[in-house]
């Protein structure tokens, strides 16, 4: 999106004035009734060279769902559910495996935190959430009462392998190269927490499959691709693959949950629509990551890994030098190392965290 300046004769402007005023007034009415502002839309093209592997993430939200009640405020919070007494949701509409949805908190101390809406099917007023092993009541989220304003939320559609990369079904388009076996097809790798889950589109079975699957295994079409996670993509085709993604730019900083068991790795989408440096990402600061472990010794420090195209660059924050540094690098200061838009990063924490705050990382709001 970009703005351009257009010069028109005054008479033309006067003829258009009523229509312009009408549009403005209607826009104001819509804005006032919805009580939120629309977010800018952007697009990003990421190219995977032929025969190579790239890291990949989508720094945008999908469009707001056309289903009702996707923006509101919480009126109650339970261990693994949230409620809005006046939501009027269509029961079960947000918790199907083929069309997953997430809820993002848009106000309060946990702004930017996202939860997946899961089965059991939700009701008109209650959503059951995958709570990442935490009791949601421990987050102390504000709820609407006669005297307080509840935590704001928005419901955003999620993606699956089939919805994001397509299929060969009628009316759909497969944007990657499929094949009858995983060695001939483009490979999508999702980090499972300790090992990769490898997927490809099996053109014989006409469905997404895991590389180890047999024909009797279930379809992987509905495998969830979390928007706050990255993935790896191996292009097996003989031509580069350019993937263009369109979506809404985030209005709030993204607060993502990551693994806090000892030495665990999580591949996180930073949700940055532009390039950002390690210094600007500033994970060593307490308002970004609780208890980030800086050290002069890489083995003791929390680490951040970025895919270089053929290997992983490992970085750590050197507490003695006061800057980011690459493991084994003779040139110490890497504060200016650029992480390209749409590039996910592995985060490895050395020690376990226990509180809700320990388990999240807050990335800067895009453009901030």
């Amino acid at each position: 999106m970009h703005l351009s300046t257009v010069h028109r004769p005054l008479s033309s402007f006067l003829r258009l004035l009523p229509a312009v005023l009408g549009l403005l007034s209607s826009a104001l009415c819509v804005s006032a009734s919805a009580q939120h502002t629309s977010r800018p839309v952007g697009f990003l093209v990421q190219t995977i060279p032929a025969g190579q592997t790239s890291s990949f993430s989508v720094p945008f939200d999908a469009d707001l769902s056309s289903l009702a009640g996707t923006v509101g405020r919480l009126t109650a919070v339970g261990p693994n559910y949230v409620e809005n007494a006046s939501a009027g949701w269509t029961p079960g509409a947000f918790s199907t495996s083929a069309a997953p949805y997430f809820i993002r908190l848009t106000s309060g101390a946990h702004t930017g935190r996202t939860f997946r809406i899961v089965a059991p099917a939700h009701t008109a007023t209650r959503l059951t959430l995958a709570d990442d092993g935490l009791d949601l009541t421990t987050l102390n989220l504000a709820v609407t009462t006669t005297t307080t304003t509840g935590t704001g939320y928005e419901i955003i559609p999620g993606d699956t392998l089939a919805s994001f990369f397509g299929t060969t079904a009628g009316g759909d388009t497969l944007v990657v190269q499929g094949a009858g076996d995983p060695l001939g097809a483009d490979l999508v790798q999702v980090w499972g927490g300790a090992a990769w889950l490898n997927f490809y589109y099996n053109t014989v079975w006409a469905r997404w499959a895991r590389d180890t699957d047999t024909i009797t295994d279930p379809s992987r079409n509905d495998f969830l691709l979390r928007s706050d996670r990255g993935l790896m993509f191996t292009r097996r085709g003989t031509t580069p693959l350019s993937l263009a993604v369109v979506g809404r730019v985030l209005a709030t900083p993204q607060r993502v949950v990551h693994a806090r068991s000892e030495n665990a790795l999580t591949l996180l989408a930073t949700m940055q629509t532009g390039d950002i440096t390690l210094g600007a990402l500033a994970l060593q600061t307490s308002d970004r990551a609780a208890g980030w472990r800086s050290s002069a010794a890489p083995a003791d420090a929390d680490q951040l890994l970025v895919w270089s195209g053929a290997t992983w660059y490992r970085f750590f924050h050197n507490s003695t030098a006061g800057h980011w540094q690459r493991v084994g690098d003779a040139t110490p200061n890497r504060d200016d190392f650029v992480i390209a838009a749409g590039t996910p990063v592995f985060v490895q924490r050395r020690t376990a965290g226990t509180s809700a705050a320990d388990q999240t990382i807050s990335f800067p709001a895009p453009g901030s």
Partner: protein
Amino acid sequence: MRRVLQFLLAATLAGSGVCSAQIIPWSEPPVLADGEKFPTRPRASRRAEKISPEEIPLRAPPAAPDVSLLGLIMGSLLSPASLTLSSFDSSAGSGSVRANTSWVGQVTQNASSITVAGIAGDDNGWGATGLSLDASSMTFLAITAQRDAGNLAPSVFIQIEDRTLRTKVYSVSTSLFAFGTPTTVHVPLAGWTIDFGASDIFGWSIGGGNVGDVAFRLTFSDVGFTTSAIPEPSTYAALLGLSACLAVAWRRRALGLVADRRRASARR
């Protein structure tokens, strides 16, 4: 589960009357007058009283401690239910080297274990898929392994996958595995969450959980789930206390019966 067992233990003891504890209220020690010696025995505790034979209470012969009950309780604590993911033998279903990992060509299959050596890195290089296991009642992950020379990987990672490939990951420090000696480490599962199908485990993998950059040198003997770790010291203490109570009760009862018989025969 352990908490439930401990509750059952306490309820069983209270209900059976095998061992009853009394709370003795604390009182200030007596103040002695000048020259008064503190009595070495309670003053009224050994006063004999004459009673008629009819007054001798009828007592059942002292029964031996209920070893069947004790055995049941100890058995449930010491023999928990378990679910094997892999015994790392050469049988089918024990898993195999995962393709495209640094473990390819670096694993030696022993009779009942695998040894990871060579240039294997700390990625998850061994595992199995296509399973259908119900681990919903399991509470611990148990890994038996030993550290071998040259290991630099700091952690062992287990990744569990359900049928829809949602994952749970558990890690444990390699320093908990002894050098050259198989050691079993129990990792608490801390409860299954709503977004994971614990009743339908489809696959798993084991390794360093990394993107592969340091040497991984371990020998694995067994990995699986269990309902209880080895009894903790508190559990051993409870069992010891139970045994002591039973022994004391049985002994006192026996001594009491002998004394009663002596008193009765003396009166005759």
